[in-house]
């Protein structure tokens, strides 16, 4: 039997030991009326050989297009060592390190991760991962409500330059607790938060301002000014950042005079494959003063009976398995393996390598955008600095143009029609370090052709 080691003799012996007549007898406490006799709707089992072939055929159906998609998930080079090590059975098949002495590998690795990610974001403490970037923003919102003792409003400002998916996740998650989100509009010229719109909230009781940097459009917000403004208003600041960008961009801990209070983001760019959207991981860091409001697991260094250093889960009194209905979050299983991959990734690229990745992404995007901008029928939407994404405006509906590119094996960008109809036909494009000059040429050529053809 696949994955079941029992021989007929084993079954006999075991039933005898138990004193049961048959395996079926072991289910005799289940009301007979509820019992089912089989699962006819499930297809018959496949051998590993058959499933291997099936999956390979399905994978081939999905193809390997040349992609300029970003919008929260980014194609990066992943060193071979990352997954060679991450998939080692000792990491891959271990449980949450509740038995610390038998889990020093995972625990030390998380501690190293906490060190790296706090340094990258410029804050003091980190948890061991959340589900993804979107849910991390939601957890940050709830955390801000808990941490900000003086604010009673349950109101947060969430600009429209924050990833629309994240805004949806925040709404479906924190909305249940009555938290309200006010959307702050952006400026048409810069694609950045409209300061005037923000000013309207001056003096109100608002728990926190969310700032995404680089923002959803790839544009860079004036984070210092925004942070200082929010702090002056008595709001907390929740930073939503791309970890790759932090190799070159000012870390949230240094935004403005006091720095952001909570920082979250999508960890996928750090060595995690795109994989249709997951598993990724959300990261979260904050100031030491808020550590007890933070959701998720945290690893601390301690000593053993003999005084040797060792690592263990700590501050568990915040968590559901101890605090139950009063926990900081219901999160239990997190995204540990992806955090593991990210830790190995950050180690392999190092500070210089991560900066090179960031620079290369910026440079490729700058090259792409400047060339695209020269095509008739294409306009770059926003002025100002950007990281590795940009919005380009087209002279006709984007969907059809993207379909034309797709036919040539190119995914030309994310159509913004649904989320930002006010822009007209608009596409969010992204070029990372994986794109060669030849790739950019191929895209530009195909787009030119598509716009000229029609």
């Amino acid at each position, binding site marked *: *039997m696949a994955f*079941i080691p*029992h021989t007929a003799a084993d079954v006999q012996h075991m039933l005898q030991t138990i004193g049961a007549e048959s395996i079926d007898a072991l289910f005799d*406490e289940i*009301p007979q009326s509820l019992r*089912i006799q089989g699962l006819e*709707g499930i297809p018959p*089992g*496949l051998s*590993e050989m058959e499933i291997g072939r*099936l999956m*390979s055929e399905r994978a081939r159906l*999905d*193809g390997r297009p040349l992609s300029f*998609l970003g919008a929260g*998930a980014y194609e990066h*080079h992943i060193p071979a060592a990352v997954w060679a090590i991450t998939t080692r059975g*000792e990491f*891959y*098949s*271990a449980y*949450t*390190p509740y038995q*610390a*002495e038998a*889990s*020093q*590998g995972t625990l030390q690795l998380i*501690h190293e991760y*906490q060190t790296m990610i706090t340094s*990258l974001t410029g804050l003091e*403490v980190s948890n061991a991962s959340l*589900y*993804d970037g979107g*849910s991390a923003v939601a957890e940050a919102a709830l955390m801000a409500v808990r941490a900000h003792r003086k604010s009673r409003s349950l109101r947060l400002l969430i600009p429209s330059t924050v990833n629309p998916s994240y805004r949806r996740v925040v709404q479906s998650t924190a909305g249940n*607790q009555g938290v309200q989100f006010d959307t702050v509009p952006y400026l048409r010229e810069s694609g950045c938060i409209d300061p005037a719109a923000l000013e309207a909230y001056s003096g109100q009781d608002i728990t926190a301002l969310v700032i995404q940097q680089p923002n959803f459009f790839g544009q860079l917000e*004036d984070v210092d000014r925004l942070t200082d403004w929010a702090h002056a208003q008595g709001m907390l600041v929740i930073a939503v950042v791309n970890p790759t960008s932090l190799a*070159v961009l000012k870390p949230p801990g240094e935004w403005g005079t006091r720095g952001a209070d909570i920082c979250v983001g999508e960890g996928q760019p750090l060595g995690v494959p*795109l994989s*249709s959207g997951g598993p990724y991981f959300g990261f979260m860091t904050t100031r030491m003063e808020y550590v007890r409001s933070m959701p998720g697991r945290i690893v*601390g*260094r*301690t*000593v*053993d*009976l003999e005084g040797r250093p060792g*690592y263990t889960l*700590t501050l568990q009194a915040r968590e559901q*398995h101890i605090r139950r209905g009063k*926990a900081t979050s219901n999160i239990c299983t997190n*995204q*540990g*393996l992806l955090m593991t991959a990210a830790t190995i990734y*950050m180690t*392999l690229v*190092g500070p210089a390598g991560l900066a090179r*990745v960031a620079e290369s992404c910026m440079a490729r995007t700058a090259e792409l955008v400047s060339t695209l901008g020269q095509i008739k029928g294409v306009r770059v939407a926003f002025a100002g600095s950007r990281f590795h994404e940009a919005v380009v405006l087209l002279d006709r509906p984007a969907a059809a143009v*993207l379909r034309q590119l797709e036919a040539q094996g190119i*995914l030309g960008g994310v159509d913004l029609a649904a989320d930002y109809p006010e822009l007209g036909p608009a596409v969010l494009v992204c070029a990372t*370090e994986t794109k060669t000059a030849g790739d950019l040429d191929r895209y530009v050529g195909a787009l030119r052709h598509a716009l000229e053809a029609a």
Partner: protein
Amino acid sequence: MNQILEKSIFEYSQPGRGALAQHPPGDDAAVLETLPSALRRRTPPRLPEVSELDAVRHFTRLSQLNFSIDTNFYPLGSCTMKYNPKACNQYAMLPEFLARHPLAPDTQGQGFLSCMFELQEMLKEVTGMKAVSLNPMAGAHGEFAGVAMIRAYHRARGDLARNEIIVPEAAHGTNPATATMCGCVVKEIPVDAQGDVDLDALAKAVGPNTAGIMLTNPSTLGVFERKIEAVAKLVHGAGGLLYYDGANLNAILGKVRPGDMGFDVIHMNLHKTFSTPHGGGGPGAGAVGVSARLEPFLPVPVVAREGSAYRWLSEADRPQSIGRLSAFMGNAGVLLRAYVYMRMLGREGMSRVGEFATLNANYLMARLREAGFDLAYPTRRASHEFIITLKRQARELNVTAMDVAKRLLDYGFHAPTTYFPLLVPECLLIEPTETESRETLDAFIEAMVAILGEAQTDAARLKGAPYTLPVRRLDDVRAAKQLELTWKPVNSAA
């Protein structure tokens, strides 16, 4: 397992060192000049500067400091630590699957989407539910989706007062935590001496404010909730809905289905029942299934088949949806692993899971009882797990469940779940799973017997355990008092 401690990766680091093959080619530093200096980072982050060899060696050595399924028996109750087939990993990690962008058009993902659709269908069949969303990324996330759907359902009916979630006191911590997170009020009810829900207490608890009840069946006490039909009748009668915590689905796979028991909404832990790996803490996948009346509220996206093509349904198709719980579609790679596993098991294999998980648990229970351990529910069948209580040993020998757990590590076995459920004193919740052989169970029993002997003759031996692991027992109190949450250049520990 390696027994030599490994220094911190930061102790390998030297300024200027690096794994240069990992840097992108060329030099684009000039592009930074396009950045206003106020936006630029001033000091580089403290990431390690090490060679590729140092990194590989460090993390390989770290890995060896872990227990894992691939190296140790792991009878961790409530966690279903079964074998994670290597095929699931290999085929979920085919290059095309890994490279696919979440926003790639459905036309560039029919292979992937067909797997997701079929997974939805299979999950419906094994649970008896009417519709499934794969979106939630862990069990607790699924719970959140479930309770949010319950609330949305009442709200859609204008039934606005229903904000109470009932949970038995044995419930997993995520259940009450989820209820709170959904803005509900938690009401705990007791279980009786046999481990079944106290129906009188339940009858008193339900009422016009009842949103629903969260149950797992078999319960976290390791027994099947026999009065489930009565429970369902009571709660439904009061206008509430029934939520099924699928953490224990492994016990009943192919034998009985939550949908048939009367549950309205359920989450499944694919990282338990469907064998995706735990990864030292995650990822998981907490797909949710619902009865017909909750289908409109399912979180998006959901895969639909239209003719021979598959596509994602979004908010536009499902206006009543509770919305989106993740930025994209959830833990796709985990779902692919579960898909491969389920297809390999097939219909016969799926039923065998429940049978042999139950056989192993009852065998282990019978043998441990015979060896002198006290069962928490001695008159009951074990489901796929069961509880022993060391209350007597604690009193007579001053030996705790924790001591036994730590000593087991020296014998090469991961400890069972300790101190959960909270209502059984000094408990060990033991779940062997169906993938372990009789020989492994026998070896575990031998170790338990040996430890019981030690407890009687030399209790101090247990207090000092473990002895053979990379570290001796760790000081959790110090960890929480003297917070050292990041590595510091000067070695601040003793």
